């Protein structure tokens, strides 16, 4: 065979993927290795280019590129839980998840409930947002109106609790069940109601205390009150002193 001339690369270099069975690597490598000899090439330039090109090809024979590619794909699919402990080299393709399984898992996370607003309905992200809000566009006005009434009329605690209970357990389609925002607002409303009741009670107690104090003190200080009435009109002196009299009784 006449000495080889190293070809000029095209303007747009391209490659050919050649799958070499591993058992043929020693033979194919040796074929490439023969082209490392100077005598195989016409000029020193051809020899240098040829040597470098074919040693690269020899190295590629050990890159295990196909195995790496398969493993990359398997890593992307993800190993099934039952085979996590199986050594990688012993795993087979069916031990990894598939796009179909991944799709089904995502679909399953949407979930359905046996009753309530999500009954037989596959929840969407929009549904979850509505649930967090506690209302949707059709029913929201009614619910906010109910809360407004509770707050403005100073509703009793029992009525507020009843409202919350109805809200959390409602199974009607027109009311969003379990709305976190609604529950929080309703709780605030109940607290406001309790505080209002406490304020009214405190006000009544204050009026009673003032009346008692007025009764004890009388309309004019010192000369006209219950203590003066009990004591009579004679002022206390050294012989007429309640504390002294009590002390004498104790000593006797």
């Amino acid at each position: 065979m006449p000495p080889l001339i190293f070809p000029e690369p095209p303007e747009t270099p391209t490659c050919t993927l050649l799958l070499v069975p591993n058992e043929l690597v020693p033979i194919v490598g040796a074929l490439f290795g023969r082209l490392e000899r100077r005598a195989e090439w016409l000029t020193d330039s051809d020899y240098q280019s040829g040597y470098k090109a074919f040693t690269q090809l020899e190295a590629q024979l050990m890159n295990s590129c196909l195995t790496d590619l398969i493993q990359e794909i398997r890593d992307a699919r993800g190993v099934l839980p039952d085979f996590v402990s199986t050594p990688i080299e012993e795993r087979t393709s069916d031990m990894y998840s598939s796009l179909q399984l991944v799709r089904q898992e995502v679909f399953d996370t949407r979930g359905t409930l046996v009753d309530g607003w999500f009954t037989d309905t596959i929840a969407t992200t929009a549904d979850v947002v509505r649930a967090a809000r506690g209302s949707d566009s059709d029913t929201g006005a009614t619910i906010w109106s109910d809360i407004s009434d509770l707050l403005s009329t100073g509703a009793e605690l029992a009525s507020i609790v009843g409202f919350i209970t109805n809200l959390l357990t409602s199974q009607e389609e027109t009311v969003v069940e379990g709305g976190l925002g609604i529950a929080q607002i309703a709780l605030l409303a109940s607290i406001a109601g309790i505080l209002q009741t406490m304020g009214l009670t405190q006000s009544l107690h204050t009026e009673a205390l003032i009346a008692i104090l007025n009764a004890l003190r009388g309309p004019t200080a010192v000369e006209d009150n219950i203590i003066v009435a009990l004591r009579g009109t004679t002022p206390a002196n050294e012989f007429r002193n309640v504390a002294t009299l009590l002390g004498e009784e104790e000593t006797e």
Partner: protein
Amino acid sequence: MSLTQRTTSIRLRFRDNDGAESICQCNLASSVSAASAASFLSAWAPLVQALSDAAIVSAEVVIHWTDPARPPAGAGSDVLRQGTFLLDTASSDIGAARVPAISDDFILATGPYAGIGIDTALADVVSLITALTDGIDGTEPCDPFADDFVSINAAYIEQF
């Protein structure tokens, strides 16, 4: 292994107009230094060229050592079954070094390249690779284009 130096060879490689090649060789005593042998080659080549229609395309000074005892080879050894060490060079190319009749003791036993790949973690293999990449006593090997070897890229059997 006990190597003894013998005569030094001076080789001139001729190529004819068909691309065929042949060598003109003469020998020098082992006492001649490498520098003197190279000097002789420079003076000798034009003398031979003057007599030939072919062209000298390369020349070599070969300093020979030999083991006169010719020790026996290992059973089953095959010099065409070579351990090929492909090494990255300082110029980001790859150079090759080969060990004829690579022993099975150094071949991978498991993995996708079982029976083919060379276990580059074994101590003797590491020593060889270190000598190729780091040199010995300050002298470092290189590829045919004077690019130093810097690291191992791949190592496996090639069957010539």
